[in-house]
């Protein structure tokens, strides 16, 4: 196969006769497809993680304030992950249809497992002395939460956010069952047609995307918590 490819560098190495795994001309010729699939992938991942974050922080705050609800919130948010993604997306379709919304909501539910736990752990890690001295200086419940507790919980929360984002990138591919899987759609097409260059490109982009988003979040974490740089 390599002989063929080197003998005719301009012949498409992704034609079904050659069908190479690594094929630079595939990246060049199908750049539009790859870009649109990657864009969809990033959009779904970011939307899902943000939705998960918006749900997880209040849930963790409620769980912390009302200890009676803590067991329920932790139980449900960790229980969701028991349901396989290939089953969860179909289970949501009666409500949200065959759409990207289905995938975003499903993935957001999965992120709760990590985000609620880490937010709660971060809030629990705030020393009592800090909390008391803030209240002694006249902080109310809301200001205490927003200006003292959440900033101090941020490093643990950000660690959870990174794990959640990386695993969401991987899981988004399964969204191809409802035709919204980003790079997963390319994987599904590639496996149906034994199109090796497409499979390789989509797999590679998935891993690169996970690493890139993780790096972005690491930088955000450094910017948001300059005091924790040594411990990060």
């Amino acid at each position: 196969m390599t002989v063929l490819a080197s003998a005719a560098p301009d012949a498409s190495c992704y034609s079904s006769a050659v069908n190479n795994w690594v094929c630079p001309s595939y990246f060049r010729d199908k750049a539009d497809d790859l870009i649109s699939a990657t864009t969809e992938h990033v959009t779904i991942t970011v939307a899902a993680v943000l939705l998960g974050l918006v749900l997880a922080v209040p849930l963790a705050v409620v769980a912390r304030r009302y200890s009676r609800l803590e067991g329920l919130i932790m139980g449900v948010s960790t229980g969701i992950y028991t349901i396989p993604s290939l089953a969860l997306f179909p289970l949501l379709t009666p409500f949200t249809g065959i759409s990207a919304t289905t995938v975003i909501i499903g993935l957001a539910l999965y992120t709760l497992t990590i985000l609620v736990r880490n937010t709660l752990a971060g809030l629990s890690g705030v020393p009592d002395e800090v909390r008391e001295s803030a209240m002694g200086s006249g902080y109310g419940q809301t200001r205490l939460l927003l200006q003292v507790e959440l900033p101090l919980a941020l490093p643990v929360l950000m660690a959870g956010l990174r794990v959640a984002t990386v695993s969401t990138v991987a899981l988004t591919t399964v969204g191809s069952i409802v035709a919204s899987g980003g790079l997963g759609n390319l994987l599904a097409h590639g496996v149906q047609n034994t199109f090796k260059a497409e499979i390789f490109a989509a797999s590679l982009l998935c891993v690169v995307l996970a690493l890139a988003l993780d790096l972005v979040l690491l930088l955000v974490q450094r910017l948001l918590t300059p005091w924790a740089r040594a411990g990060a």
Partner: protein
Amino acid sequence: MFGDAVAYLLDGSNWSGPGGIVAQLGQQLLLTVTALLIAMLVGLPFALWLGHVGRGGFLAINISNVGRAVPTFAVLVLLSTGPEWGTDTLGPYGRAGLATLIALVLFALPPIITNAYVGVREVDRDIVEASRGMGMAERQVFTEVELPLALPVVATGVRLALVQVWATATIAALVAGPGLGTIIVAGFYNGNYGKGLAGAIVVAVFALVLEGLAALAQRALEPERHASFRLTPKPLKAEASLVP
């Protein structure tokens, strides 16, 4: 859509036969149990020993992070398309049986290894030193002190792996593999959404049943949890738990 799914589930002919729910369920259970046992046989001794000697912690802990970042779908696709035997039938494991089994074992290993290592490492060092001081041999320290105390964490790792394997075995159907996922995939790819939804319901119900059984098994293994005392209250820890 729910009506169609219920109708599909109520039709007895969908349960029987070679491609029926019962046959697919049996195949997926067989795959899951086989992969979990292989992963335990390979991963547990290695990770427990690493924990005992206190080496390789970086690897043992980070392998779970790597495992989470790798898309199961992509690995299944690569394993079934790559090698010649990718989609070959393997005895009772069905089409693409070997490729599916390899993927399942690969994704079961990280939680098993990480939890086994962390479980042994987190045993109170004072207790370990005390048992050495009492004259226990290294082997006894491991089997009679570290292992029983590490058991809850180790068992949690196996449960995480079970959930992971069941989820991955379902996704195998997106590629070529056997199992209940084929019902979901056949339904959704052919516009028969009721059938797809019915398959999803069966997969989800059995996921919860398996997790429940695993929780019961774990409880039976841990008599000390029923004791009404605990020396120190355990702080809630940030645990990056695994998503299928």
